[in-house]
């Protein structure tokens, strides 16, 4: 689907918000200028977003950023003050939740404790008046899909967290929804099971490619692993939106850079741009550095140089690598990596690398390097 860029008045400065055209409204999910307030406090402000059919859209942000509210608006649990919601081409803003064809999985799974797994999965079908034969077939298929067919007779209290999560997903999918809403579905699981479930969710979506998924999380790893695109929210607003790689590699603002992964940010001044090579020369103190150009950070402008910790090296990655003299402030070994803190001109930077045979000592003076294409510029006015 082609996306036009709309300079939405409510969006963060410079944020590209996909236009909700007729095609987006016809399929997938469309939010048009949604505003929600609780007791006079705005918790979602002019939220505009188009989620493509079959897409996994992750909404991430800190607590209170409005991501769960956006999800609850989609489900119909919260009525917006303003704006419209479209699902599969229908304007569902005024529809009650039971008329929206939505599957939802929440953080605590909310499996009905008085029903065994089979009845939990069958619930939506029974509520919709499906035939018993259809229910049997559909429930068996959904339980099989999540690997829980042998647990059909168990009550939720007899299942582990991961198993309950699978049943909750089967229950949500049994009604064959157009949209699956996942509200921090893995946050109650321990780290190992969370990884397994992430893989299972990914596999599940591959087997249901037309299912549109909105995945709300505060865990950027989950979002990066699972989502096609990520929307970053802050204070009830969508402050960044893009595909995972693009958003990670080229964050549009400081908040996005710092929330999605760890970022080293240095204040620089743009000296010159070269549209042909796609690079720009910037000045950081006495150092002149080459970085990837940002058309919105033009010569003479102040900007932030953003470089991810794993893109900083202790050895030059190539002949054109930038070099910065730094003082090692701390060295931490974390099993599968070394995490090294530096101080450069009063600024703290972080480098992560595969375990080093001879890591530098704290206090040592070293050079750290990065390739121009691994560093991006965030225009000064976009600071979050």
């Amino acid at each position, binding site marked *: 689907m082609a996306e036009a860029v709309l300079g939405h008045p409510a969006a963060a400065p410079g944020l590209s918000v996909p236009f909700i055209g007729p095609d987006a409204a016809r399929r997938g999910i469309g939010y048009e200028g949604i505003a929600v307030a609780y007791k006079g406090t705005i918790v979602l402000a002019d939220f505009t977003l188009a989620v493509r059919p079959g897409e996994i859209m992750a909404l991430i942000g800190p607590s209170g950023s409005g991501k769960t509210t956006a999800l609850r608006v989609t*489900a*119909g*649990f919260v009525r917006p003050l303003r704006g419209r919601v479209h699902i599969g081409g229908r304007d569902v803003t005024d529809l*009650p*939740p*039971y*008329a*929206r*064809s*939505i*599957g*939802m999985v*929440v953080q*605590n799974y*909310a499996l*009905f*404790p*008085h*029903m065994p797994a089979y009845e939990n999965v069958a*619930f*939506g079908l*029974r*509520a*919709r008046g499906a035939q018993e034969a259809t229910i049997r077939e559909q429930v068996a298929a959904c339980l099989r899909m999540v690997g829980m067919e042998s647990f059909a007779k168990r*009550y*939720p*209290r007899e299942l582990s967290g991961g198993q309950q999560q699978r049943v909750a997903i089967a*229950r*949500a999918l049994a*009604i064959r929804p157009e949209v699956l*809403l996942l509200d921090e579905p893995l946050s109650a699981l321990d780290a190992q099971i969370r990884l397994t479930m992430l893989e299972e969710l990914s596999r599940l979506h591959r087997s249901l490619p037309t299912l549109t998924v909105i995945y709300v999380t505060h865990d950027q790893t989950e979002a990066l692993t699972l989502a096609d695109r990520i929307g970053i929210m802050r204070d009830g607003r969508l402050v960044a939106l893009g595909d995972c790689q693009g958003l990670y590699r080229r964050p549009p603002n400081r908040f996005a850079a710092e929330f999605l992964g760890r970022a080293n940010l240095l204040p620089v001044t743009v000296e010159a741009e070269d549209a042909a090579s796609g690079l720009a020369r910037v000045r950081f103190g006495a150092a002149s550095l080459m970085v990837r150009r940002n058309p919105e950070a033009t010569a003479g402008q102040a900007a932030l140089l953003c470089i991810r910790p794993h893109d900083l090296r202790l050895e030059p990655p190539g002949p054109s690598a930038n070099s910065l003299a730094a003082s090692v402030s701390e060295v931490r070994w974390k099993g599968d990596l070394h995490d090294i803190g530096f101080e450069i001109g009063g600024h703290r930077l972080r480098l992560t690398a595969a375990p080093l045979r001879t890591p530098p000592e704290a206090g040592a003076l070293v050079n750290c390097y990065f390739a121009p294409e691994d560093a991006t510029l965030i225009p000064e006015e976009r600071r979050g």
Partner: protein
Amino acid sequence: MLVWSRAGRAGAWAVLALLVGVIYALPAIIIILASVTGQWNGVLPSHFTLRHYANALHGSSAAMLRASIVTGLLASALALVNGSWAALALRNTRPLPRRVLDIVFFIPSAVPSVSVGLGLLVAFSRPPVLLNGTLAIVFVAHFVLVSAYSYGNVSAGLARITPEYEQIAESLGARPWYRLRHVTLPLLMPYLIAAFSLSFALSMGELGATVMVYPPGWVTLPVGIFGITDRGAVFDGSALTVLLAVTALAVLIALSRIPIKAAQR
């Protein structure tokens, strides 16, 4: 354990035993003893008999027991329906009206039951609503007195049910009535049973309002016990009291044995 020394624990247990013994056990033991006493002139009865139970199970006593059970069941059932409906309806109401209606529901539990009885007598002794001398006024009195407990129990239960169950049910396509029958009420079942049990127990023992409003031919057991003991037949009254307690206990035990899947979370 707050008390760590052996002597301290022994002392605490002794105080507890004394309190339980004096407050709960002793009156019950005395009543049970009195119910099988033929003659009691000293510290302990000198002669035992089952005659008082024979009297209790015949004639007007059986009718009184039946009146108590029917009144208790009917009033508790009505209070449960009304209390549940009110609690469900008021759950999503704005705080101020909810608080006002909370007070309205809880007033009867704060007012002496005699006052409730008198109020009903005054209110319903003249047209247009003339209930004085009818069975209905007894049911109304018990209903008013136990409603607060039904409403309170169900409200407490609803407050403990996370709204996500109902929201998920809705998102799966359950309309309000379907959701209520298949999700909300089953989840509330432990609280509904507790509300009914408490209401029934209170109704079975209710005297103050009933004695003001009961019509001829519908004498509840507490009213009967009061009348009998007032006439000096203390041992017959004790036998009826034991019968009342055993009946109420039997119903409560039966209610507590209803399987509640939602309670086994």
